[in-house]
Structures are given as structure tokens and as C-alpha cells.
């Protein structure tokens, strides 16, 4: 026990003492608790789901733009075979009418061999189209710098070759647009719902943490802590948990998209892979998508921190029956 010398005098601030772990301030809200770890896992899962929803929305929005760009720049003329007519000559004629029309950059008729190659994945290799009444396709590429009168081209073809029909893919583009908008909207709704669920989870966890740490809050009040100081301790606690969970969930989502990108790139050599890539793009997020997921992770942490601060302030408002 100490000798009973007079109470030591207060000292001026000491600036030069080295800081090491033994002296460093420990978080006042215990960090490594079971509830804290569980919440970090919940936040990680929520961030992962939110990042997936946002990532898929990005991929689909990009793919939809690609679809519109690719489909919109091309039109197709289909020449129907008729008995007694030379379909190769009809195809060449349709191509020359289209190529001469204002606003058309190129018109290219598929040869019989190219048509066979196109159908090979479905009908098998070694196909002889001369045995089948297969229509012939002419791909018409628009000149992006010039406008084109699609109805005028259709009329010109009708005059020159009544068996030819022009498809400008307008109906397709409209359907693709609608589908893409619905899917992106659904992904955005899932994203918002996940964020709301996470905010509620943090809210419950904050109330639980306050109830579990009531002794600490009381002790802090009695040693003269202001409500703002106590709220900051909880805010930092949940910010740390949010950053940990957000980094894990966001990192997992980025990793998943990178792996899907690698996988789909390798898979595109097959016919199914080509279809998947045509529908969903290359699953490549790009730096913009990765940055967006990183921002979602940080945003989730900030949301958790803000939620806890609001709830702690509200709860402390009624902690003692004194005038506010």
C-alpha cells in the first residue's frame, strides 16, 4: 500500500512521452464481442447482396447499350427463295439496291457457305443448303454520320425485288430496351431493399449494444462524459464493424465478378458461351463498376455509423429524466 504522502500535484501536459500499446486508448465500446462479429457478418452479406444487385445492374445497363449499339447500326434484308429464280442473283441485286441508298455504309450478302456456317451450330456441320429453301440474308450497315429513311429503303426494295423484306430490328430494340429497364429497375429495387434491411439490422444491433453496455454508458455519464462523446464511441464502433463487413462483402462481390469475367471469357469459345455473352455481356465490371462497389462498401459503413449515432442520441435523450 502507498505511503500517505500528500496527494500528488497536477502536472502540466507531457508531450514527449512515447506512445505504445500499453498506454494506447482502448475503444470504450468493446470491439470483439459475439454480437459485434455477428453484425459484421450480417453487414458483409448485405453488402455482398447490394454489390451484386448494383453490379448486375451495371453489367445489364452496359450490355443493353451494347445491344442497342450493335443492333441499331445494322438492318437485315431477307430474300425469300422462289422456284425458278436464282437466289444468288436476287441477293446480289438486293445488296446493290441497299448499298446505293443514302445513309447506308455497306450492304453485304451472305454467301451460301457463310449461311451454312451460321446454321452449323444448330443443324450440324457439312450442311448442304442447296437442298433446303433457305432464305438469304443481306446485312446492311448504317452510316452513323448520316440519317437513313428506312421506309424509303423498304419501298425501293419492294420495287426492285418484291421477295425481299427489310427488318430494321426496331421491335427487337424496343423489347430489349424494356427488358433491360425492367431488370435494371429490379436490381435497383433489390439494392435499396438490402440497404433498408441492413439499416434496420444496424438499428437493432445498436439498441442491443446499448442494452448490453448499459453499465459502460452509466459509468461514462458518471465520470462526466457528454452525450456527444458517448454517441461517438458507438458511432466509431459501428463504423469499424461496417468497414470490416463492407470490405469483406464488397471484396467478395468484386472477386465474384472478376471470376465470372474470366470464366465467361474462357467459355465464349462455345456456342452456349456466345449466347450468354450476347445476352449478359462479358460480366466485366470495369474500373467504374469496381469503384462503385468500393463506394457501396464505404457507404454501407457510413450508413451503419450514422444509424447508430442517431439511435444512441435518441436513446440517451431519455436516459435520465432531466430537462433537454
Amino acid at each position, binding site marked *: 500500500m502507498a505511503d500517505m504522502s500528500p496527494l500528488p500535484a497536477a502536472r502540466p501536459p507531457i508531450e514527449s512521452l512515447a506512445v505504445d500499446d500499453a498506454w494506447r486508448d482502448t475503444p470504450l465500446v468493446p470491439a470483439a464481442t459475439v454480437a459485434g462479429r455477428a453484425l459484421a457478418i450480417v453487414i458483409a452479406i448485405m453488402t455482398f447482396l447490394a454489390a451484386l444487385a448494383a453490379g448486375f445492374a451495371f453489367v445489364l445497363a452496359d450490355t443493353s447499350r451494347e445491344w442497342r449499339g450493335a443492333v441499331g447500326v445494322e438492318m437485315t434484308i431477307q430474300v425469300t427463295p422462289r422456284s425458278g429464280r436464282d437466289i444468288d442473283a436476287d441477293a446480289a441485286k438486293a445488296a446493290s439496291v441497299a448499298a446505293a441508298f443514302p445513309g447506308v455504309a455497306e450492304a453485304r450478302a451472305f454467301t451460301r457457305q457463310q449461311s451454312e456456317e451460321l446454321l452449323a451450330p444448330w443443324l450440324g456441320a457439312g450442311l448442304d443448303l442447296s437442298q433446303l429453301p433457305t432464305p438469304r440474308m443481306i446485312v446492311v450497315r448504317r452510316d452513323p454520320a448520316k440519317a437513313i429513311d428506312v421506309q424509303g429503303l423498304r419501298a425501293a426494295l419492294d420495287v426492285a425485288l418484291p421477295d425481299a423484306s427489310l427488318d430494321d430490328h426496331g421491335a427487337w430494340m424496343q423489347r430489349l430496351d424494356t427488358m433491360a429497364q425492367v431488370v435494371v429497375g429490379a436490381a435497383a429495387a433489390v439494392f435499396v431493399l438490402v440497404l433498408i434491411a441492413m439499416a434496420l439490422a444496424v438499428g437493432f444491433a445498436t439498441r442491443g449494444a446499448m442494452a448490453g453496455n448499459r453499465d459502460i454508458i452509466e459509468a461514462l455519464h458518471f465520470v462526466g*462524459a457528454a452525450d456527444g462523446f458517448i454517441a461517438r464511441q458507438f458511432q466509431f464502433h459501428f463504423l469499424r464493424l461496417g468497414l470490416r463487413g463492407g470490405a469483406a462483402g464488397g471484396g467478395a462481390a468484386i472477386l465474384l465478378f472478376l471470376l465470372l469475367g474470366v470464366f465467361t471469357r474462357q467459355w465464349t469459345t462455345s456456342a452456349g458461351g456466345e449466347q450468354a455473352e450476347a445476352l449478359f455481356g462479358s460480366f466485366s465490371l470495369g474500373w467504374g463498376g469496381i469503384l462503385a462497389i468500393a463506394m457501396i462498401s464505404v457507404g454501407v459503413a457510413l450508413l451503419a455509423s450514422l444509424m447508430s449515432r442517431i439511435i444512441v442520441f435518441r436513446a440517451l435523450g431519455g436516459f435520465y429524466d432531466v430537462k433537454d
Partner: protein
Amino acid sequence: MGAEILRDISFDIAPRSFQFLTGPSGAGKTTLLRLILLAIPPTRGLITLFGKDSAELDKAALTALRRKVGVVFQDFRLLDHLTTYQNVALPLRVQEREEASYRLEVSELLRWVGLGERMHVYPPVLSGGEKQRAAIARALIMRPQLLLADEPTGNVDPPLARRLMRLFLELHKSGTSVVIATHDLTLMDQFDGARRLVLGDGRLHIYD
């Protein structure tokens, strides 16, 4: 509604005074200390602390008043995840002072109460007496104008109790008003000069 605790009790605590608050178990000693600390509001009546009516206090004023009061709880109220040093430094930390600015001050106080070698251990491994001294050091670190101690010698043997009492007397000599709640008559008898506030049947009898 529960049974009424305390009743028409009026008293004041003079600056630089030393008093025991005593009475049988259940008389309301701890409740009275909590009322003085403004931890609970009175259902009726008036509490004036440092010249301010407690009913008129806002949160900021309440916090400012609590910083003038040191308190030693019967159950210590040390935070188990902080070291002894960090517990004692807590009143300074909540004022957002830099750790380096109070390190020597806290270390010296811990040595003074005999916990110099136990600075970096956690409360669960401290003995009852060591916890008591850590709680007392935490109450003293701000050099409060008023010290409230609830059964501060309740968990220690008589020799250690006497030594802890000498700590409080030392603090009193340096200008702090001290209120010690205890039902240990033997202990009070050793400090004859102290004022006694005896609580019982809703009344407070004061023996100067």
C-alpha cells in the same frame, strides 16, 4: 408504484466538509447518493447542486456538474475491458484530452494509491482492495469539489479500510467535500470529528 423511499429530508453539504452518511441497510443511503449525483430525479422536492436547481439543468449543464463530482460506487463500476490505468484516466479521456497530457498525472496517482505495479492489468484480475483503490483513484483524478463514496470500505479488511479512509481524509485536506456512505460504526468511531448524517424512517438526523 413502489414503496416510498426517503421523505422530507433537508440537508446541505458545506464546501470543504467531511461527513459520514449512515443508517441501517435499506434506509436509502445509496438512493440519497444517487439523488445527489443527479443519477435519478426526485419525485418531489428540490436538489440544488453547486447553486443550481437540478430541475432546471439541461444535458450540458448536467455534464458540467458531474465533472465536479467524484463518485466511488459500492460495486466499483470499473470497465472490465480497460486496464487499471485506462479506467483511472477515464474522466480525463471523456473530456477528450490527449493521452500524453495526463499520463504522468494518472501514473503518479496510481502509485500513490499503491497500484503502480498494477497499471496495465485488467479489473477481473485485481483483488477487491485493488479494485476499490482503482475506483477511488478514478474518483480523485479530476480533483472533484465533491466526493461521494458508497461503502468504500465494504469489501476490504479493517487495516486496508483504515488506509483507504486516510486517502479520503487526505483529499478532504486538499479542499474537497467528502460524503462517505457506510454502516460501519467502528470505522466512523475512528474519525470522531466527522459530521454524521444518520438516515432512518425517512428522516435524516444530523450530528455535527
